[in-house]
């Protein structure tokens, strides 16, 4: 019996509000140095995508008075799935806001948005305009496009880390109401769930689309993007340093929690970004069991080589 991939398919975009006049600084970072492509621009926003993304955006930037995570967008299979989820979310006692096509974001079909128990806003949609691959679909060259070489040039949006005052409640909502799977979790000595990696579908770099960490509600911990392999990440780390970009400590490392090779660094607004490769290949079958980490093994979970815990790494970044 095949798995019914209904409901949410995958993470699609992150929408950030930045105190950035005409988005000059953020575009300087995300487009010119980080290496995302500008798909669209309107009076309020810039829409950026990764070079291996077919949909029109993975990152939406807009000018706001305070820096903030506005929402995270998820692609739902079809309109029926959108209606089904609307009902489930409302039954769970959470208010759902309906938005017409192209409202508030361009290139998107009708959508619903709501606040999860951790305080962050999600938006679900079934339809988004496609830009297609930069490389084209016919006998493509699967190499970083020439104009992006020398930048981070991420391939996809991989996952988003959030902080939550009650990680268990957030994990339950994502699992029970939105249908996410749990690939890994970290538990305290007394069995409390401290962190979870939630996913919907197995992808090239799989096992997490939302990573929940303990902390204040409503905040962003990091945004992760996919790269091909560790070598790629190490070379890009040099470009980022050359460009004066602040690398977060650990530096490049294997993160056993999620089984990625990762490099964390900060954009020019202090938002923590991650480039990662590898990851768990999760088979989303009914017998799948999560990997469980004990909090006492946190150093092994977060940075396998140096087995260190950097408390600053646990802070939210927006």
């Amino acid at each position, binding site marked *: 019996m095949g798995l019914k991939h209904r409901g949410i398919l995958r993470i699609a975009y992150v929408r950030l509000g930045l105190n950035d006049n005409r988005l000059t600084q953020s575009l300087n970072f995300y487009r010119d140095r980080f290496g995302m492509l500008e798909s669209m621009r309107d009076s309020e926003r810039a829409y950026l995508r990764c070079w291996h993304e077919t949909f029109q955006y993975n990152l939406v930037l807009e000018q706001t008075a305070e820096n903030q995570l506005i929402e995270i967008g998820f692609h739902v299979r079809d309109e029926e799935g959108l209606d089904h989820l609307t009902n489930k979310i409302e039954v769970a006692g959470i208010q759902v806001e309906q938005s017409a096509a192209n409202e508030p974001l361009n290139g998107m079909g009708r959508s619903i948005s709501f606040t999860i128990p951790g305080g962050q806003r999600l938006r679900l949609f079934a339809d988004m305009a496609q830009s297609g691959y930069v490389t084209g679909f016919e006998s493509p060259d699967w190499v970083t496009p020439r104009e992006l070489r020398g930048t981070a040039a991420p391939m996809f949006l991989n996952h988003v880390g959030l*902080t939550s005052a009650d990680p268990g409640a957030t994990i339950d909502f994502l699992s029970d109401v939105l249908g996410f799977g749990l690939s890994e979790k970290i538990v305290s000595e007394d069995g409390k769930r401290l962190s979870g990696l939630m996913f919907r579908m197995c992808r090239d770099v799989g096992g997490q689309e939302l990573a929940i*960490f*303990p902390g204040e509600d409503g905040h962003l911990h990091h945004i992760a993007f996919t790269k091909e392999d560790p070598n790629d990440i190490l070379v890009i780390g040099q470009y980022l340093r050359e460009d004066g970009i602040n690398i977060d400590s650990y530096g490049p490392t294997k993160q056993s929690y999620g089984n990625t090779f990762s490099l964390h660094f900060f954009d020019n607004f202090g938002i923590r970004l991650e480039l990662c490769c590898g990851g768990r290949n999760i088979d989303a079958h009914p017998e799948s069991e999560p990997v469980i980490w004990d909090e006492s093994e*946190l150093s092994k979970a977060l940075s396998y080589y140096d087995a260190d815990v950097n408390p600053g790494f646990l802070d939210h970044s927006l």
Partner: protein
Amino acid sequence: MRTFQVELRHSEQSAVQFGCRSDQSILDAAYCAGYLLASTCLRGGCGACRAKVIVGKISELAPMSNTHCQDPVSGKITHRLLCVAAPATDVIIEMDRPWRTRSKNPLSSRLPGRLPG
């Protein structure tokens, strides 16, 4: 085998105390007590963990690099390397480098209502 009291001091930090067995390195006992001392080679060679014994005596679990135990000006042996030093009495030690505190529950302490640990 006995357990002795070790006190670590550093000009920028409040002193800390913990127990250390006579066959255990002070570096290891510090780690178990939640203090991360500067260290690299863990075999008495690099000098990262060098410190002065102010009060008491230590025993050497393995040979220590003379160069890293010497005062750079006088050439006299003034320092010990804590990765291969065990206490032979209660000791008070003045660290060259500050230590870091290792939290035993770095994630739980971020939940509301939990004490930092």
